[in-house]
């Protein structure tokens, strides 16, 4: 490392450093994820903390998730209508809306909203605690911050995102139904009958499984970036931004991976 690099080779050296630091970053996150998962799966648990996170993450995210889902379902229905109209297939609107919402948009948009709302909140909260040395104080009180701070958030977000995705599915279909009624004059009763007849159990389940994975990503990114924040207020701000950005990217990447995996099942 310390050996002087000839000037010609310095771009290569820079490239190498970038690759190495990227690898180290992935490794650090993986180690953090492993420790956090172990802390979440083994006692001791802090039920009061878990419930508090459930409330903050799950329940208080409902308005945001519901609103997003409604508008998404309605916009999706409008687009399918104008697309399906071109080849006389606009009557399959309920089915396509249902499929798009349950398999893809419900889980992904709920997860992205949580990446914005929850990953940022976790990162800034833990980052501030790190900056004010409260995390170290916990250790002094012989409380494992991994168990007390990280595990409850991991559990709460991973479990509540599927529930939020379920709410998003329902409200997204409602949004589509509203458009179907005003545009195509499909009676709501028929709309939901077509939707329920068409959807298979797996359509919904695969979306909920994805939502669980996204929840893990959101909590992990929030905790990791908050936990590793350094450099005072600015560091906390940077950690928050990075938590949101990395969570969003990982959600979309995981979405593609999981969907292609499910397609081969």
């Amino acid at each position: 490392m310390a050996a002087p690099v000839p000037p010609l080779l310095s771009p290569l050296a820079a490239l190498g450093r970038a690759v190495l630091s990227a690898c180290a970053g992935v490794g650090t996150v993986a180690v953090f994820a492993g420790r956090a998962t172990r802390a979440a799966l083994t006692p001791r648990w802090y039920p009061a903390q878990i419930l508090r996170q459930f409330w903050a993450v799950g329940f208080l995210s409902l308005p945001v998730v519901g609103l997003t889902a409604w508008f998404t379902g309605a916009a999706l229905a409008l687009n399918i209508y104008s697309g399906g109209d071109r080849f006389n297939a606009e009557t399959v609107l309920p089915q396509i809306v249902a499929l798009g919402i349950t398999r893809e948009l419900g889980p992904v948009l709920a997860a992205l909203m949580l990446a914005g709302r929850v990953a940022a909140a976790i990162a800034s909260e833990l980052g501030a605690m790190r900056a004010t040395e409260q995390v170290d104080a916990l250790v002094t009180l012989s409380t494992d911050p991994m168990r007390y701070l990280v595990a409850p958030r991991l559990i709460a977000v991973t479990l509540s995102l599927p529930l939020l995705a379920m709410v998003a599915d329902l409200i997204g279909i409602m949004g589509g139904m509203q458009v179907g009624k005003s545009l195509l004059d499909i009676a709501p009763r028929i709309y939901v009958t077509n939707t329920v007849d068409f959807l298979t159990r797996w359509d919904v389940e695969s979306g909920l499984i994805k939502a669980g994975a996204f929840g893990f990503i959101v909590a992990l990114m929030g905790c990791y970036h908050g936990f590793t924040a350094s450099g005072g207020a600015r560091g906390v701000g940077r950690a928050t931004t990075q938590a949101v950005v990395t969570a969003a990217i990982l959600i979309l990447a995981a979405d593609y991976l999981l969907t292609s995996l499910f397609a081969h099942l």
Partner: protein
Amino acid sequence: MSGQSGRNQWGETVLGAGVLALALGFMGWTMGVTGGGGSHGQYKVTARFGDAGALQAGAKITISGVKIGQVAKIAIDPKTFMAVTELALNSDVAVPSDSTAKITSDGLLGGAHVAISPGGAADNLKAGSEITNTQGAVDLFGLIGQFIRPQGGAAPAASSAAPVPAATPNPATAAVPTY
């Protein structure tokens, strides 16, 4: 999320409860409408087709162009290689037992559906009974091919003016008036 929660979260709490109530209410209403996910107010009959064409589960079933049900399932009969369809018909429509089911489509690009022409029998189809008079999908491209080369593509070109008795008299040919 942190310590100063409490009073200023009332608005969010109420909103969250509202969203939850909306979703649950919608789910309850959906359950009521669709009979708990199952098919309510419908009965299922089967029909075998020689060619299901582009028919898919969920396609509508019509009488005189009015929807009276939808295709519940399409499967292959492993012995006869015919397409066995399960048709879910609304129970408020009594269909005579000698009715004819045929697969047609709305226009060239429209989705395939099953059209039932009611027969004149006194008794009606019951749950589980089979529609025996069926007419499968018309292979449009096959028809066009026959029109362009009436002898059939596989016929040897050397057979000079020999009246090729179409090796496979396509039963679908009789269904041309469908289009």
